[in-house]
């Protein structure tokens, strides 16, 4: 027996070519322009536009119709496309997510909503043993071009069963891409990319970035979004703010807290780089290493549980890179505890401004 060298991209040259060619009809990260939308509207717009262009795209989930999605991800779509393409389901996640899989196998492009990611436990088999594995098990003969859209995150006292992030759980299991937009521009471009993708994509939006009228709003939950279709490539991080002293590797709502901290500390002469991962799978390890190599200090800010997840994987990425392995490392995550209900407790475990600030100061010794 010999150690087997495995091709890390897992692709033949022909496949790489096809992949590069596939969704090139849409521009990649165009200028944002001046029109401003909140994240929810950006998502609705991306789905609506793809539905217009492709009759095989449809939306399915609980309360996605007349209600417009509990977090407004599908508002207005029922009126535009009718109940045949915007389908309210019974509370049967295994059945309707599996139905999305079967429809995708036959060439449709379902966008299926799992209302809260916390509910994955009732339907994970369809997601991780079927949606994510069929392409591989079929030796590449069967594709599952499906988007599984779901709401994540806490901060409004919804308790241990409705406040989790859990991207680490999905990312650990092979065969699905995992994207996590933090702002309206990325939300639209990533949704367009997800629907265009021939792979299953788990699209995780934090309730706190949607710009909902009934939830505390971050100023960045509204931003400039092009009217045309465009792609934000899956698997590419974004430097949300350039800096030189310390790198915050983060994603989703925590990007905003991190930017707030960076802005505040800039006044003290502390230069913080904020890297918005945007995708967890594929993870943009090059961007992480490049920033770590530059600043020499990495703080992971992650609203998912701390242990055995994203933050550890970033540590491994650093240690595995000759350029980044010497970087200082710390993390501001949710410790390994169910999310508590009471505000005082929940904000003790969330990656708050205060905890991030303290971590930056500790890192730079200020």
């Amino acid at each position, binding site marked *: 027996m010999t150690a087997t060298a495995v091709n890390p991209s897992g692709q033949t040259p022909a496949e790489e070519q096809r992949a590069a060619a596939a969704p090139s009809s849409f521009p990649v990260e165009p200028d944002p322009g001046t029109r401003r939308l909140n994240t929810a509207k950006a998502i609705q717009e991306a789905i609506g536009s793809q539905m217009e262009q492709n009759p095989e795209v449809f939306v399915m989930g609980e*309360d996605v119709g007349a209600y417009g999605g509990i977090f407004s991800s599908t508002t207005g779509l029922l009126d535009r496309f009718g109940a045949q393409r915007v389908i309210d389901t*019974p509370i049967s996640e295994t059945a309707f997510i599996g139905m999305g899989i079967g429809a995708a196998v036959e060439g449709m492009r379902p966008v299926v909503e799992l209302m809260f990611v916390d509910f994955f436990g009732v339907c994970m088999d369809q997601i991780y043993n079927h949606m994510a594995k069929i392409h591989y098990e079929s030796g590449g003969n069967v594709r599952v071009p499906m988007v599984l859209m779901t709401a994540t995150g806490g901060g409004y006292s919804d308790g241990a069963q409705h406040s989790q992030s859990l991207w680490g759980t999905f990312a650990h299991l092979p065969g699905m891409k995992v994207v996590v937009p933090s702002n309206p521009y990325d939300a639209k471009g990533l949704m367009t990319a997800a629907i265009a993708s021939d792979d299953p994509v788990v699209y995780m939006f934090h309730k706190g970035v949607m710009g909902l009228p009934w939830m505390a709003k971050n100023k960045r939950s509204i931003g400039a979004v092009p009217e045309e279709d465009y792609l934000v490539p899956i698997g590419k991080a974004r430097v949300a703010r350039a800096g030189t002293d310390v790198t915050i590797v983060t994603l989703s709502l925590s990007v905003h807290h991190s930017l707030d901290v960076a802005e505040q500390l800039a006044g003290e002469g502390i230069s913080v780089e904020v890297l918005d991962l945007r995708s967890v799978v594929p993870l943009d390890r090059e961007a992480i290493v490049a920033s770590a190599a530059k600043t020499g200090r990495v703080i992971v800010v992650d609203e998912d549980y701390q242990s055995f997840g994203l933050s550890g994987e970033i540590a491994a990425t650093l240690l595995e890179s000759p350029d980044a392995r010497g970087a200082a490392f710390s993390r501001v995550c949710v410790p390994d505890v169910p999310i*508590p209900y009471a505000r005082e407790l929940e904000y003790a475990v969330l990656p708050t401004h205060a905890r991030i600030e303290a971590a930056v100061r500790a890192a730079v010794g200020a």
Partner: protein
Amino acid sequence: MTVQDTAVSASSLTVQERRELLRTMHLIRSFEEAILRDYHADKAPAWDIGAGLIPGEMHLSAGQEPVAAGICAHLTRDDAVTATHRPHHMAIAHGMDLDRLAAEIFGRETGLGKGRGGHMHLFDPDTHFSCSGIIAEGYPPALGQAFAFQRRQTDRIAVAVTGEGAANQGAFHESLNLAALWKLPVVFVVEDNDWGISVPRAASTAIASNADRAAAYGMPGIRVEGNDVEAIHAAAAEAVARARSGDGPTLLEIHTLRLWGHFEGDAQGYRPELSTVNEHDPIPAYQARLVADGVLSDEDAAALKEEAVARVDAAIGFAKNSPTPQPEEALRYVFVEGA
């Protein structure tokens, strides 16, 4: 399946029993009204779900009091109840301490879960009460409580509650099958309030009554129409007796009414019958009936309500005056033993 009709003409209940049913319903409603008030009190002007004395999602049970009162009248605190995201009416009817319930909802250290759980996660060893925010997932643990009661050769039972929307979830099916197979002492209750958030029952299943599903497991199924507390009481009497005597589970579907939104903040634009909902409030109707039947006077009824309001006020006061949890203690209680 048996359908029991609203028209239970002459009551077979004692005056005392009927007053108790009304008293329970008033207590529940008064509690929900108080929570409603405090929930919305300090979220304005920009209504923020996470703000205020009571943050988070809030699912109130107004209109569904007959279910809780009618069923829990047959239980003692040694029986178990597992409820849903909409748990207050069952908790109160089952005798949960009102102070600790209120304190949990206000997120206080004196709450049932010391503020860790919140309104969807109420666990009370004293009344063997629990609930779950995950649809239909309260059913399976009830099997285990019933199993423990059975093995210890008691006549204690478990009552497991879900909504009609939950009846289309896999856990519902598995639980009923297991309970029937092992003749577990369980009463399965489906509260059919016609809606699962914005989705009407007819858009969730092709069948008219979930009680028809009982036959798929070999257990009796009863649907009770009319949201009438006495009809519910009568149906529950049978089901509870069957469970206590070792004859196994029963499925009870009760057609009830969601008087308010799915959760607070729900504008209910999807609900065509919205304008007439209040006409069907079961509490004034039952009260009027008792007055008409001479069970109590208008003054007695008013006193019952006042008494309920006073009890609730005391509980809310207890909650508001209780300390909030210490942030430093956020990691306590993950494990019993060190980790």
